[in-house]
């Protein structure tokens, strides 16, 4: 199986701060990958480097498709931003349409499918800023879905969303994987990472482990990944220091 994302000796720095150091990974196509790590471990930086937002200080990252969709960590949306939910979802097609090409029937169909998949058809004419946090995240995920991408990079998509939205997004991630797309999800949820994804990438600036959950979600690997801040509660391993959801 060919790799859809390859990082070779990838190092990214922000000033004096090393965000990623000598990362080597080959992400196989058609898989779902949980990217695990504490805040500041380089999860967001890995995604940012993959879409060209962060330049490598050394090494390189190569993406084997031009159809990449990226959901950044949740940010505050200006409540007065002049766009309806349908406008926001349609923006997902603009990357393919470039500057002025008009939306085709296929583009409109992809937008409609994305809105249905996230169950936001009834919100189409509402202003994005008027929605609740969960509804807003659905709209932003629908924008990602509308891109019809081969590689989807979702940076903590479950932060601040309600349970129904979380369930919807999980089903969507499974559906994308079943369709042969590759989905990488940055998450802090150790239990879900071990259970719901094909592969787990344990990251703490360097790659601690990358492979099937059975090999990577061990107490030893997770202790190294989270610098010892994991605990076993019942049968589950949980992260005990997840204090800064804005960092990553």
């Amino acid at each position: 199986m060919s790799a859809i994302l390859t990082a070779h000796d990838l190092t990214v720095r922000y000033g004096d701060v090393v965000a990623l150091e000598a990362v080597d990974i080959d992400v196989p196509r058609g898989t779902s990958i949980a990217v695990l790590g504490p805040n500041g471990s380089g999860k967001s930086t890995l995604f940012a480097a993959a879409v060209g937002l962060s330049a490598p200080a050394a090494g390189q990252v190569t993406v084997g498709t031009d159809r990449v969709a990226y959901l950044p960590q949740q940010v505050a949306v200006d409540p007065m931003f002049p766009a309806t939910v349908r406008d926001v979802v349609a923006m997902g097609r603009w990357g393919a349409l470039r500057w002025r090409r008009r939306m085709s029937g296929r583009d409109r169909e992809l937008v409609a499918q994305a809105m249905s998949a996230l169950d936001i058809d009834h919100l189409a004419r509402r202003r994005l800023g008027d929605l609740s946090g969960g509804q807003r995240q659905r709209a932003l995920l629908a924008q990602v879905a509308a891109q019809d991408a081969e590689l989807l990079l979702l940076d903590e998509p479950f932060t601040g969303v309600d349970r129904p939205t979380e369930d919807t997004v999980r089903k969507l991630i499974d559906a994308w994987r079943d369709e042969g797309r590759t989905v990488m999800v940055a998450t802090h949820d150790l239990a879900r990472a071990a259970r719901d994804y094909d592969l787990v990438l344990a990251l703490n600036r360097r790659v601690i482990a990358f492979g099937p959950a059975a090999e990577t979600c061990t107490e030893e690997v997770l202790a190294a990944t989270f610098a010892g801040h994991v605990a076993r509660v019942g049968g589950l391993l949980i992260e005990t220091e997840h204090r800064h959801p804005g960092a990553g």
Partner: protein
Amino acid sequence: MESFLFDPFQADFMQNGALAAMLVGVLCGTVGCFVVMRGTALLAESVAHGVLPGVAVAVLLTAGTSGDPDKAAILCGALAGGVLTAAGSAVILRRTRLREDTAIAVMFVFMLALGVVLISRVDGFAVDLTSFLFGDVLSVPDWEVALTAGLAAVVLLVMWALYRPFVLVSFDRRRAASLGVSVERTELALMILLAVAVVVGFTIVGALLVLGLLIAPPAAAALLTKRLPSMMAVSALIAAASGPLGLLVSWHFEVAAGASIVLVAVAAFAVTAVLRPAR
């Protein structure tokens, strides 16, 4: 009533003034939507005042320390000053970890002070500082109306062509980049359009008041609409109507024309904010 509305516009200078003010209104009302949407009012204010050193250099180069300056050179100098102000703010922001408003304010005061220093080299302040600060809408010659129309058309054309990248960088720079938009180039293009709008606007309503046309009509339109195309249309309409209505106020009450135009635009915002149902 008919004579109240139309008699003032029998005079050529009022016709030219109204036409120029309407063109500036459409321009500032449209570009201003991106200023309001991106929360860059301070940058717009900074650019408006940053034109001063450019104006001063143009005056010194074309008129020496006395005499009549070349108006085209003043427009070019103003544009250069405005772009330099915005570019300087971006450089300070990139090289330091200061907050954006601090970086912009540092450049703002630097350019303003530099402008005053340069102007003070001109004998007896020969440059009409009042017209720089408050505009000169009642003495707009035909060629300046044509130039305003041309520049407004170019800006609106660029805005039409780059509409999608402009919206994407305004919505979220990271998403824009992931969709293949060159964020820095797009923001540079937006900044240049803002500088052109400011330069065209300051000749009509002055550097102190051009911000009024960039902010008040889009702010009113934002309260009335929920999509950007309609916001731009309503904003351009309010700003364009403010021109002749402001001139009417100025004519009948014998008050400053540029300031009257801006007062009408701000009044449109106030009425909208009061009458719109509370949220």
